[in-house]
């Protein structure tokens, strides 16, 4: 279970998150929506431990573990997975080598035995099929020369291999055509399970047609200002973020 309490964070002098409270139970899918600059990606970055953000107040716990105290690799070992908005290209390191190093480190941390190359290849075989991946991508350098769709597919494939307890999808739909969007969504849906939490960060409702959330939250100016069920996403699609702003103004 992910528990975020009163989270404040800033980049240099600019306060971006201004008191986030969010609880995601195992098995639930939560969507975080909001206009550009509302703090969606910052929230994803702070949870996964990217440098450059200063947490000034609040806490983030996953299954009782204080994530803010951990290095990014320790958060990964604790079960956090971030699907990047812009996956990084790493020339000179093959996808297979990279994934096996990642998986074995995570396993080591969990007290599980490392996998030999043969065991590893067996482990990933079904996931390659699930993500409809061209297996030649495995022997290529990480994300190098991949199309936008291939990069996003590779992110979800990595998630399938690492089997995290919390998956954060940061604008995974950006730059995807409808076919790629379906493949990526199918992959995420296949990974939904009673012991896994998923946080989908997105600007548009489109992705949520395929990955149907249990809860939708609207993030504005660093705070969650409205929460609801999946119908909230449809309302946002219909009326835009302006209607939430108007509601807030009316209350004030």
């Amino acid at each position, binding site marked *: 279970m992910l528990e975020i309490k009163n989270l404040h964070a800033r980049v240099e002098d600019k306060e971006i998150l201004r008191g986030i409270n969010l609880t995601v139970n195992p098995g639930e899918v939560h969507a975080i929506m909001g206009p550009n600059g509302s703090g969606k990606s910052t929230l994803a970055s702070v949870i996964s431990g990217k*440098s450059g953000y200063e947490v000034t107040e609040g806490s983030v716990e996953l299954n009782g573990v204080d994530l803010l105290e951990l290095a990014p690799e320790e958060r990964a070992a604790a079960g956090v997975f971030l699907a990047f908005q812009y996956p990084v290209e790493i020339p000179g390191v093959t996808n297979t080598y990279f994934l096996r*190093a990642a998986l074995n480190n995570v396993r080591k941390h969990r007290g599980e035995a490392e996998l030999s190359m043969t065991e590893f290849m067996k482990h990933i075989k079904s996931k390659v099929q699930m993500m409809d991946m061209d297996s030649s991508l495995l022997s290529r350098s990480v994300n190098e020369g991949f199309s936008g769709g291939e990069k996003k597919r590779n992110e979800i494939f990595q998630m399938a291999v*690492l089997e995290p307890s919390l998956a954060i999808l940061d604008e995974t739909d950006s730059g995807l055509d409808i076919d790629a969007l379906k493949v990526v969504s199918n992959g995420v849906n296949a990974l939904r399970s009673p012991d896994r939490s998923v946080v989908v960060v997105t600007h548009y409702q489109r992705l949520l047609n395929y990955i149907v959330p249990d809860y939708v939250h609207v993030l504005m100016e660093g705070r969650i200002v409205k929460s609801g069920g999946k119908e909230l996403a449809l309302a946002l699609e219909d009326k835009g973020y302006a209607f939430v702003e108007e509601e807030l103004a009316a209350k004030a």
Partner: protein
Amino acid sequence: MAGTSEMIDLKSTPHSLVENFNLMKGLLATYGPDELQVLREKAFRNFTEFGIPTTKDEEFKYLSLRALEDGRFAPAYGATIDRFELEQSVLGPIDAINVVFINGEYAPELSSAHALPKGVFIGSLKDGFTVYEEVILEHLGKIANLTGKLGSTNDERFVYLNTAYLTDGAFVYLPKGVSLEQPIHLIYLSKADHGPLVSYPRTLIVLGENSDAKLLESYLGMDGVYFTNAVTEVVMGESAILEHTKFQQEKLESVHIAATSIHQSEDSIYTNNNINFGGHIARNDVNVWLDGEHTETWLNGASVGLGHQAIDNHTRIDHAKPNCNSFEVYKAILGDHALGVFNGKIFVYEDAQKTDAKQTNKAILLSPTATINTKPQLEIFADDVKCTHGATIGQLREDSMFYLQSRGIPKDEARGLLVYAFAAEVLEKVTIASAREVLENALFAKLKESQDMPEKGGE
């Protein structure tokens, strides 16, 4: 020739590199046709006149050759290396047409006999003379030669030295239209188990029109303190294609000074992958003369220097004809107190319109005491050309580090992986699969020696 007044004077001070010549003169004269003796005598006179360069000479500004000053190098002597020892070395068993030399001397027992296409010769220079004397004499000493070429600081002293002692070496000849399936592997082994020695490997590669080959040239140290002074000459006929990888893994006490000179004819494609992990002092000059239109040249370099190693790469591309493209990427990883030097010259001659030349030099410094000196040098005498160069010296990219860490790879391991990848990207240019694997393993093992490098792990 610059700064002759700054040389180490070989005329008045006794030095083994000179004395050896007088000792060996008679023996040298018995090797090869008379024309060779003329070459040797002339080269010896040039070498003794100009002497050993110092850091006051422009082309050796950053590289101290004090290790050569003591001059206790005996002429190369025979040594025994058996097949098992060779296969246990970093080279392992690479499936190729192998031509092996020990301390500069041809070692037929380690070389492999192969059925070759008609007219192809791959073997020792000495055997080559019996079949292709005319071809050899037409090119030997003519390619590694800067006479009449641009440049005010041209320095050929170590080519003179090699030529003065020219005896055996490797000769590769592909007649017109031959495409060789199997890679060629020239292996120069050094084993100085009875005191310091000097050897002078010489290689001549002649590719006929439309021929195509892949060649690996390895310099590997087995034991002791020694000096390898190598010269390789490559002649590319029209439309010929050559992938030429040089792998230098000399002992860390040794000095390796080598020149590789290439002449490219019209429409030829030449790739040079220059990989340097060894040597206390390692110096490479790669000189490409573009003597026909529409040629393509790829110069790739990867060096790793640790401890007190000095690795100095000088390249020059002479765009003497129009419509030629050259692409150059040189990378260096330097740790501890290592020194790296990159000097990349591109000369675009007056007639060489529509030249397209790109040069990139990148270095990663693993420790604050490691140094890189980088100097792109573009001299352009034509007006319609595209020439770019860029140099970066730096740290690893933060976004790459975070990406790896966010997947569970610890910081130290992520750093090791990215340093490895930085150089491995160059090794990927080697398309001989078994050779690439050897190079990757050698790179991995080399990086493990660094005190600044964490274990790569994951294996």
